[in-house]
């Protein structure tokens, strides 16, 4: 592992913020620290950068323990949430700052800054001051400035939080491609699970100063190992011991099932169904059109269940009796979690 955190704990004013954080990051990969605000994820980033000391534990980068090193000596690039651009320096001088402090030659500086300006599409803005830039441009300057001296690691604290939705989408894709092209090992902090899913190679989910789960976006989404992750990542309906047809339900009666809305198919009673499976009865509480999907809230066996429906299908009315089919559910007992496909599906496809 290129970056390794070992038993990192942190207390501040007698309150424990981090509890024995252990995880590693592969060289050249992009990792997301995902968690709600106040979960301690930014503190982990600051400890990595040497901006805050850990109460106990150890951090190693590229096989070298860095606990005793000052931020100056760690070789870490850092992008703050508000970018923290040097407001009295031009874009050019912002990017050149780290090269000058590390005594690069004038010719090397010129060459490296020009290269980065081109990479981040900022060449035309080289002589502008930060206050003249848009949010997206500022973020690109902060990124270029952070990677200019070729740091070993790049850390980004909520890099997209200050941007509009549209620009955020674009920059996410841009940043992901760029980080992989540059090949720099990177960690970013976010509270937005979609952002983490779309951008990261690996996600570390953090809650109340503890790691909940580590895995690829796919694993984290489909196979949460804790109730927190199941509820925090994406939308799901939580059902208490539902009587699910086609699933191997546990013997004890206090289990829960988490069901993603996209795993529930809803049909009008007179609609033709694509699969020959047993359907269940439910009542529509509400349905909300949000562009790409219609979110349907259903009452099923006295519990609330969310489902997605295509806007192309005929609309559902509040109070309408409908039929539904659950394709996949995450079954949680006190001991373990298990992702199950509806067994009727296999049977239906086999036909």
């Amino acid at each position, binding site marked *: 592992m290129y970056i390794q955190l070992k038993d990192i704990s942190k207390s501040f004013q007698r309150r424990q913020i981090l509890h024995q954080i252990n995880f590693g990051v592969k060289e050249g990969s992009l990792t997301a620290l995902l968690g709600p605000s106040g979960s301690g994820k930014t503190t982990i980033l600051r400890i990595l950068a040497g901006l805050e000391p850990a109460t106990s534990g150890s951090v190693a980068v590229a096989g070298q323990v860095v606990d005793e090193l000052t931020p*100056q000596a760690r070789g*870490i690039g*850092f992008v*703050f949430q508000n970018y*923290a651009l040097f*407001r009295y320096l031009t874009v050019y001088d912002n990017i050149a700052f780290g090269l000058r*402090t590390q005594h690069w030659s004038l010719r090397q500086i010129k060459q490296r800054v020009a290269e980065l300006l081109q990479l981040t599409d900022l060449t035309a803005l080289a002589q502008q001051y930060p206050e003249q830039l848009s949010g997206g441009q500022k973020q690109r300057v902060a990124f270029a*400035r952070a990677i200019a001296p070729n740091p070993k690691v790049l850390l980004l604290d909520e890099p997209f939080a200050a941007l509009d939705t549209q620009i955020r989408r674009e920059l996410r894709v841009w940043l992901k491609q760029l980080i992989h092209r540059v090949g720099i090992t990177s960690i970013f902090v976010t509270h937005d699970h979609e952002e983490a899913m779309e951008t990261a190679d690996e996600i570390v989910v953090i809650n109340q100063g503890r790691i909940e789960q580590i895995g690829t976006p796919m694993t984290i989404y489909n196979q949460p190992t804790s109730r927190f992750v199941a509820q925090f990542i994406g939308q799901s309906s939580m059902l208490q011991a539902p009587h699910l047809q086609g699933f191997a339900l546990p013997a004890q009666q206090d289990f829960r099932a988490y069901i993603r809305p996209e795993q529930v198919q809803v049909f009008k009673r007179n609609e033709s169904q694509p699969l020959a499976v047993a359907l269940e009865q439910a009542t529509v509480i509400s349905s909300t059109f949000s562009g790409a999907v219609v979110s349907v809230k259903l009452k099923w066996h006295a519990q609330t269940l969310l489902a997605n429906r295509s806007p192309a299908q005929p609309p559902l009315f509040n109070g309408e009796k409908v039929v539904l089919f659950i394709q996949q559910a995450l079954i949680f007992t006190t001991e373990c979690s298990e992702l199950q496909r509806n067994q009727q599906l296999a049977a239906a496809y086999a036909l």
Partner: protein
Amino acid sequence: MQLLQAKKVKWLLLAIAWLFIFGILILPLALVVMQALALGWRTYLTTISSLVTLQAVNLTVAATVISLLFNLVFGISAAWLLTFYDFPGKHLLNALIDLPFSVSPVIVGLIFVLTFGQTGWLAPLFTTIKVQIIFAPPAIFLTTIFVTFPFVARELIPVLAAKGREEEQTAALLGASAWQILRQITFPALKAPLATGLVLATARALGEFGAVAVVSGSIRGKTLTLSLLVQTLYNNFKFKQAFVVATILLGSTLAVVILKRRLLRE
């Protein structure tokens, strides 16, 4: 119609502003200058170059420079401390910084007399080492420092608080030394509030009257500041000379304000 009314309001406000500034500021100042020059240039120059006036200029400049230096060191340290550190008694210190603004200058003078005077609490110490504080320049320096010390700190604290430390931390992560960070990142951001604080402190130091009057003893040629000299002359019915000395204060204050604007390219 709406537009017309808006224009009327604008002209009304403009008229009020100018009338006020003219009546309160420009007219009295012009009268001071006119009075000072009433006896002609020759008298003006003799008064200005008299020994008593020169002594007062020296003392006032010395008091101002010393208090500015103290302000610079104390103001920056206090602002830094209060913005970036947590410690027991932080709120108390924060409140105490404002004390010189809220205590009447005469009381300030009396406090110093009680502390350093002939019968004061620290009198035995200063008698032993044969240093006179009260009715001597040191008392004037001390009181001037006292009445000016909130200026720089109060200007810097909100700016430092709003600025945060992230630019400095970024610079550190990019390999900058503490000195490089201070010079290239922190100082440029603090230039303007620092200058404002210093200008305000200078104006106060030049013009301080109440506190200084109590501790100075108004010994001609020894412990008179410019403000005290104006008052002494005025009390001795030397009105014209009083106005002459007043123009020095007026001129230096204007010069400081203009200098600040020049330096900051406002």
